[in-house]
């Protein structure tokens, strides 16, 4: 993290107060978002999302596994995030562990729901192959390639895009007596099932600087924040999760205000992502 001089800090705070940030954005404007899909051939689905100088990659890998005894009718999903040392010198060695864990937890909360898997954004029962015997395990991995603020929003967007890119192979199960009732799997190489991602939320982080809050903060702006609220909102405008960072307290009325702003902004963001996904898929098909 580069330090900023007093003058620069003052300039950034002033820009946010006057609704004209350093790169000419208003407070509720995102940086240009570019999306690519299918960037990792080995994965079942993958995406790269760039927001200004922030770049993240998400991949989805599906493996056949066994459902837990407690929830025989549900598949398993796990989310992990890693910060590449190429993104910032401070991520070298164990330096990124804390941030990676924080991002992973925030994403797990927003996307996976409770321990039982209830309320997850991804329909876990659609991952089942044979109840109690076999299910798909989804491993969602995020990688921060380059960091310039607003990592959580970028990661959530990348995961959403990667999931929409994911094709889960069709499985033919043959039960026969020879193998003592153990099913045999025949994983198809050609037929894929697309995933229903309409309920996967996006995350909008509102970073509070001074009296105002901004979306899509750069790392310079994040260094001036007092607190940040990340709200995940789905397509219907419903709140799926919330996390708050930063030590400074927030008045409840401000939080309500932030939520309604986040809800409004997220709808714009979702439609932006949708058009980007469509464009990326069209580019892939070429």
């Amino acid at each position: 993290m580069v330090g900023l001089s007093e003058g620069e800090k003052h300039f950034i705070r002033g820009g946010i107060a006057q609704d004209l940030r350093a790169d000419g954005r208003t407070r509720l404007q995102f940086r240009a978002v570019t999306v690519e899909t299918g960037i990792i051939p080995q994965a079942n689905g993958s995406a790269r999302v760039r927001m200004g100088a922030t770049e993240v990659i998400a991949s989805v890998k599906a493996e056949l596994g066994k459902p837990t005894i407690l929830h025989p009718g549900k598949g398993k999903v796990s989310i992990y995030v890693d910060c590449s040392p190429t993104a910032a010198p401070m991520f070298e060695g164990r330096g990124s562990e804390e941030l990676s864990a924080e991002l992973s937890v925030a994403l797990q909360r927003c996307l996976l729901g409770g321990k039982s898997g209830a309320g997850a954004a991804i329909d876990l029962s659609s991952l089942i192959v044979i109840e109690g015997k076999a299910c798909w395990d989804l491993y969602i991995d995020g990688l921060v390639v380059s960091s310039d603020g607003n990592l959580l929003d970028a990661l959530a967007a990348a995961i959403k895009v990667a999931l929409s890119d994911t094709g889960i192979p069709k499985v033919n199960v043959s039960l026969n007596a020879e193998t003592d009732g153990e099913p045999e799997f025949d994983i198809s190489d050609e037929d894929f099932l697309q995933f229903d991602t309409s309920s996967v939320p996006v995350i909008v982080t509102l970073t509070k600087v001074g009296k105002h809050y901004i979306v899509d903060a750069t790392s310079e702006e994040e260094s001036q924040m007092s607190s940040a609220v990340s709200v995940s909102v789905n397509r219907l405008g419903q709140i799926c999760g919330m996390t708050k960072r930063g030590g400074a307290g927030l008045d409840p009325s401000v939080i309500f205000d932030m939520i309604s702003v986040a809800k409004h902004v997220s709808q714009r963001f979702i439609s932006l992502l949708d058009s980007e996904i469509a464009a990326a898929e069209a580019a892939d098909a070429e």
Partner: protein
Amino acid sequence: MRDLHLPLNQTQRVRLEAALHELQTLAPAAASAAAVTVADTIPVNHEDNILKGHGTTDQDGEVVATLCGVVERVNKLVYVRTLRARYKPEVGDIIVGRVIEIAPKRWRLEINFSQDAVLMLSSMNLPDGIQRRRTAVDELNMRSIFEENDVVCAEVRGFQHDGSLHLQARSQKYGKLKRGQLLTVPPYLVKRRKQHFHHLEQYDVDLILGCNGFIWVGEHVVVNEITTFNEDQEKLSAEVETFTPMETRKHICRLANAARVLSALGFTLTIELIIQTAEASLSSNVKINDMLGAEFYVQTAETEAKRRADLLGRKKGGAR
């Protein structure tokens, strides 16, 4: 095509490619011949025994480039100057840097060089403007001149015997830069010129093109001959809630975005070009933020191609 990550649509892509192609054909043949990539042979006359410099190697009697860049020849020496490399200082360069450490009698500055530059307390004008020996008290008060993370403008004084780089700031025009933003561009885009400080009166903006690729765009400050520091400090705290005027801020952002666009397209940053680009955005009613959008990139590339073509045409016309 470069590492531009732009969501271009079909027509924009075609237009940008056409503009870039135009620029390529306009470049003098000597310039394109001097650009090499890894494993390109560098044509040399073997009769005058040449010296192979940085970025070259000998392979089967031929000189081959081991780096991407531009071939430079100094007498017998042939070397490759890489473009995306760190800054290589020359004495007299005006640079913008950031203080990273305060050491006894000196500040250490990050200037995008392979090592940190050193600004000695003795090679800078004291705020009271009086020439005198630096005392221990001055040394204790160093932090009141520059703190860590301050953005500072200075001049390259020279290299010490141990290879470290020394700076000087012996005039009122050098020193701390306060309200504004710092951009970083590849250093090769800033050419050495007579003038690196620019006070754009029409905008009330200071623009400093540091030779090391650090560009400062900030609010204009009036240079007083004598400014005592204490007074300065008070002013800053009293003005905490009086931010940069909106008009000035708009100009700062517009100029900064113009510099961003030009550097992303790989055009040499001159003050004229930056102002021209900012003015072009203003006259075609492009919003400040939209300057970073695909359409404005394409427009800028086209304008530049046209400008260079005109320039070349005029030169040729003059020759006839």
